[in-house]
């Protein structure tokens, strides 16, 4: 379903604007065109960063850094791949850097102390498909914690490939191109990611 949604967002973006025309306008210095380009893609960029990093602060940083890089380097874009691939290559590289840094430092707690008491950073996210039933909600919370753990066990590259395939609906060939690797290597990453998650979530799914 999410794959369909991602595809639909992308299709809408393409239908809404003649992308090549907009990009050429941006390259000529048309600021309105740049804003149009940002708005066509920024929701899916933010969604990708949030699902990869599971942190609103990090997702916000990635959003800003990615579009600043686009802003600074759009005149180097030569249409030898789609803008979507070019943009996602930028976003995934930044996310991979975040994930690698995170592996080095201690995993941050989702709970932060504020003047108003402890706050769960994940509350900034809207979780899809929440349920009103208290038992169901408790089960969902448990499953959610396990999913967070399962995703945390993946290597940055496995996590990225999984995110791009499962949530963003991208083909493994495109993912390989974005990450500067082969389709086969992306396929191996997806397999390892799926296996690891099935081990961690085995009794819940």
């Amino acid at each position, binding site marked *: 379903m999410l794959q369909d949604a991602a595809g639909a967002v992308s299709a809408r973006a393409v239908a809404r604007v003649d992308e090549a025309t907009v990009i050429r306008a941006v390259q000529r210095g048309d600021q309105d065109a740049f804003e149009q380009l*940002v708005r066509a893609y920024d929701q899916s960029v933010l969604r990708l960063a*949030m699902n990869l990093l599971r942190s609103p602060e990090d997702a916000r940083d990635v959003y*800003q850094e990615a579009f600043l890089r686009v802003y600074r380097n759009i005149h*180097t874009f030569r249409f030898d791949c789609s803008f979507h691939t070019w943009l996602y290559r930028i976003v995934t590289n930044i996310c991979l850097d975040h994930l690698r840094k995170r592996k080095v430092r201690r995993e941050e707690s989702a709970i932060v102390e504020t003047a108003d008491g402890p706050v769960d950073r994940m509350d*900034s996210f809207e979780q899809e498909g929440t349920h009103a039933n208290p038992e169901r909600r408790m089960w969902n919370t448990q499953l959610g914690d396990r999913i967070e753990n399962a995703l945390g066990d993946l290597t940055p590259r496995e996590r990225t490939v999984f995110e791009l395939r499962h949530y963003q609906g991208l083909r493994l060939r495109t993912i390989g191109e974005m990450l500067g690797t082969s389709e086969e290597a992306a396929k191996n990453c997806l397999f390892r990611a799926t296996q690891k998650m099935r081990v961690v979530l085995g009794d819940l799914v």
Partner: protein
Amino acid sequence: MNCDAVVKSIPFYFYGEVAPDAEDAIEEHIEACAPCRVEWERQKALASALDRHALAPSPELLAECRHDLARAIYREESPVVRRSASDPWGLFREAFSSLWRPGIRFRQPVGAVALIALGFFAARFTGTWPAGASLAGFTPDAMVSSIRSVQPDNAGSVQISLDETRRRVVSGRLDDHNIQRLLMAAAREQDNPGVRVESVELLKDRGSSAAVRGVLLEAVTHDPNPGVRLKALEGLKSFAADAEVRKTLAQVLLKDQNAGVRIQAIDLLIANRDAATVSTLQTLIGKEDNNYIRMRCQNALRNMNASVGTF
């Protein structure tokens, strides 16, 4: 297809990443084999659970991100823009236009003063300057302390705003030798990247002049602003076969910190292949941390039938 092969293929089957004939074989097997059917159901359950726990950005977070981006771009360019717009995208537009739009008036006070003798204007002023050029009153021994703006128009002329003892505007055609000399001086204007970008933009189609080409090579090697370096690279495109240009491009490829500049340098180098290019690309692969650039190098080396590594 046996159970082991089917179980290993299930994730790819789920994501539609197996060939159509293998897809048929997996479907038939799952239909007939209860343990593999259980594996298939588990795969679907896992995907469904993950879908339910996907995170979606709240509209507030998205709005904050857009606001932050507009602010960040504005901050990045703030020394050269006028602070008048109140909404973030208005600020962004000002910042953006300051970088790109021809003729924007930069208001940054110029710190270091590069004094440029403009004695050459005297000769132009005394008789042969084009009619309508605003050089009236220009003192022959005037000294220019800095160049504030460079503004081309559609008729092929350029208006250059410069400071002497007071600011003065001079106009002339782009093919005028003195205007070109002034533009070359402007391309070295240390404290104003906007002036440098605009000047290099105007000079980049005149690389057939050795002096202009020298300025472009200097800009691509030493200018601190990647936008200026990229413009200079554009100007060198037609001279990518020239030995001096190629030597500079190789240096840029190995030293420039900006990935966009390195990518452009690769494009120019591989347009005219030689043994030195192979060596440069092989060296670059060994030290490059940008995946895309490494991939471009690998592809270029393969196209040149050269090995990716050095031995």
